[in-house]
């Protein structure tokens, strides 16, 4: 290399170094100034909502979208976020299609293009899991409304909060109910079968049930069948025949899509099998399920249903229920309720933070302490532990009796005597 060229190259390198050092110094000294602070006027707060608006779970997502938008409308009509000078809340809803890869891409879009200040989502555990990584990387708070897979709050994420409970907590309820009701009714069950479809949620629930059953103090029932089938199936006769031949006393069944829940019920009736107790979660917890199978839905026990019993002596919660059904004409299902709670946490946190700066907002969410009176579901409130999990979410167990979800457990909340064991199909006619 010629000396002249060498000296030019050195000059360029020196220039680059000087510029880089100057930029770094400027960032250190002035960085805080360009970031939004509590004194910055905020025109609007953008809340990204990730939910399935197409695909098999669109019914759930449509309700969630309606609730999020209704909440924003209500806040805006009452003067917006007061601590932000009346900033309006804008909800930007993105469709996950119930697919992990779509949810992840939509989360990235909400963060990078829509510049949302926080995200609420994404119903399916299988979608929330990869999509929330985008928010964690970007340093944007994520309030998980529904996804109940236990691992979600065990990842050590700093920006992830879950208002709903998780399946470790919920799974235990099933065994506690079984124990309580057997004692109460003087019956003893020995055998159990587990049924699930293949979503991350269903697999999570089933593995928690199976883990608990291994403990003789909690479960200890002899497993006589396990039926894991694809979701969105056209026929379940073979699966129902497996159950009929195994003849378990207890069947624990998790199925997310409502059509699957309807098909299971119709098929069990066709093969003429109903266990002494059928306990479910997922698609069985919706009014559309009861509408689909009518009286055949009776005696199924499960969690996650919105029962009118929840509103007894809780007029504020009933008001929310009435307001939503009146304004939208949609079913107020449990995912609508969790979306309401997540929006409540978001708005409360924004008010307390008085800022849309991510760290301040994150801290405000972490400090959330909402009382039971503000809850639409019969929770004790919302308060997050160090993993971001709400410690107050509970889910009472209900039984379908005369075509309605009626709370039967815990006993303190019971409003009607449970039918236990359930009658067989023949005994019902």
């Amino acid at each position, binding site marked *: 290399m010629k000396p002249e060229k060498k000296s030019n190259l050195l000059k360029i390198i020196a220039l680059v170094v000087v510029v880089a050092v100057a930029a770094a110094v400027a960032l250190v000294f002035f960085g805080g100034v360009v970031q939004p602070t509590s004194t910055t006027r905020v025109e609007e707060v953008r809340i990204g909502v990730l939910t399935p608006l197409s*695909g098999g779970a*669109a019914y759930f997502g449509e309700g969630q979208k309606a609730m999020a938008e209704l909440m924003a409308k209500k806040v805006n009509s009452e003067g917006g976020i007061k601590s932000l000078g009346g900033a309006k809340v804008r909800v930007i809803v993105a469709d996950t299609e119930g697919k992990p890869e779509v949810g992840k891409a939509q989360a990235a879009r909400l963060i990078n293009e829509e510049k949302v200040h926080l995200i609420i989502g994404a119903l399916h555990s299988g979608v929330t899991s990869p999509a929330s990584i985008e928010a964690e990387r970007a340093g944007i708070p994520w309030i998980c409304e529904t996804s109940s897979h236990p691992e979600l709050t065990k990842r050590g994420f700093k920006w992830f909060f879950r208002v709903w409970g998780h399946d470790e907590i919920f799974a235990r309820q099933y065994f506690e109910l079984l124990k309580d009701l057997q004692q109460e009714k003087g019956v003893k069950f020995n055998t159990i079968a587990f049924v699930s479809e293949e979503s991350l949620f269903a697999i999570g629930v089933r593995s928690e049930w199976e883990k608990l059953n291994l403990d003789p103090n909690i479960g200890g029932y002899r497993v006589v069948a*396990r039926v*894991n089938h694809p979701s969105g*199936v056209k026929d379940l006769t073979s699966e129902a025949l497996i159950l009929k031949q195994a003849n378990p006393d207890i069947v624990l069944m998790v199925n997310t899509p409502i059509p699957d829940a309807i098909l299971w019920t119709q098929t069990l009736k066709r093969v003429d099998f109903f266990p002494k107790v059928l306990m479910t979660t997922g698609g069985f917890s919706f009014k559309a399920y009861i509408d689909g199978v009518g009286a055949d839905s009776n005696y199924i026990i499960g969690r996650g249903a919105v029962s009118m019993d929840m509103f007894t002596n809780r007029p504020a919660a009933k008001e929310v229920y009435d307001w939503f059904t009146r304004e939208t004409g949609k079913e107020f299902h449990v995912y609508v309720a969790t979306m309401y709670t997540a929006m409540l946490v978001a708005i409360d946190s924004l008010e307390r933070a008085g800022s849309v700066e991510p760290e301040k907002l994150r801290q405000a969410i972490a400090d959330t302490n909402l009382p039971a009176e503000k809850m639409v579901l019969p929770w004790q409130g919302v308060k997050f532990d160090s993993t971001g999990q709400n410690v107050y979410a509970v889910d009472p167990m209900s039984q379908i009796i005369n075509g309605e979800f009626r709370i039967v457990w815990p006993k303190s909340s019971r409003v009607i005597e449970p039918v236990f064991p359930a009658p067989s199909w023949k005994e019902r006619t």
Partner: protein
Amino acid sequence: MAQVFSSHRTGVPSTVVERKNMIPAISPTIFLNLLFNGFFLGSIYALVGAGLTLVFGVTRLVNFAHSILMVSAMYFTYYMWSVLGLEPFLLLPVSFTLFFIVGFAIYRFLVKFVVDKPFSSQVLTTLGLLLIIQYSIVMLWTSNTYTVNSPWRDIVFRLDGVFVSLPHLATFSATLAISVLLYYFLKNTYTGRAIRATAQDPEAAKILGIEPDYVYSISLGLGTGLAAVAGNMLAMSYSIDPYIADVFLVMAFVVIIMGGMGNYMGAIMAGYIIGMIEVFTAFLFMPLLKHAVPLLLLILILIFKPEGLLTKRLRD
């Protein structure tokens, strides 16, 4: 009780699961129940596949909108039942005729313009049609799940543990009747012969005075009519939402490839084979594998007999 399941179905600690047999015992009663169920499921696949393959055999058009037309027929059945109280069984000829006209119109107003165009244009057109119909349904009736709660649905004939439900029996009977009628139509009527002639050589058929557009529109009408019959039958035993089309589309393609693209009888046979495989795989091995095994079989067929199980084409 232990013979009912085996640990290969479970993957959980063996202390909990008794391992006596790897394959569950199958009593004659269970076998018959599975067999009858295989006939039902096979009928649906056969009807959906036969319609799709008929259209392909004649027009060389891969109709991605086929399954959503079936779902539209399910909605039609639901509304006729819920509003007018008409039983799905009685609607069968109405559904077929109405959707024949729909298929005919789809050809005349849409497909006609792409039938000679490259494959990509055809795919985009029919895929576009699928999305338009699917989201129109979502806009009109949301994503709610609907069920035909007809008292007929719950009628089950039982004998010594063997059961056949009325909707399943009706589906099988209708499939059998329609397959035979359509076969007769294609073999023995002028239009049927014109369809086969066009499938064999469109240019030669044209020289002989057969108008391709007429044949193509009749074919699309017939294919759509078959999809409607499948939808009509399915509405009695399956709940309805806009997205169940996706569930059937994949299997319809497996059926027509397995049966030999464009082979009407091949599609019906493949429909029953897949129905049986699904039902027996789920019971004997693992429900999770029931969709995978037909796909595995498809791969083997593509390797060893790529022309499909039946090589005799519609045109022959």
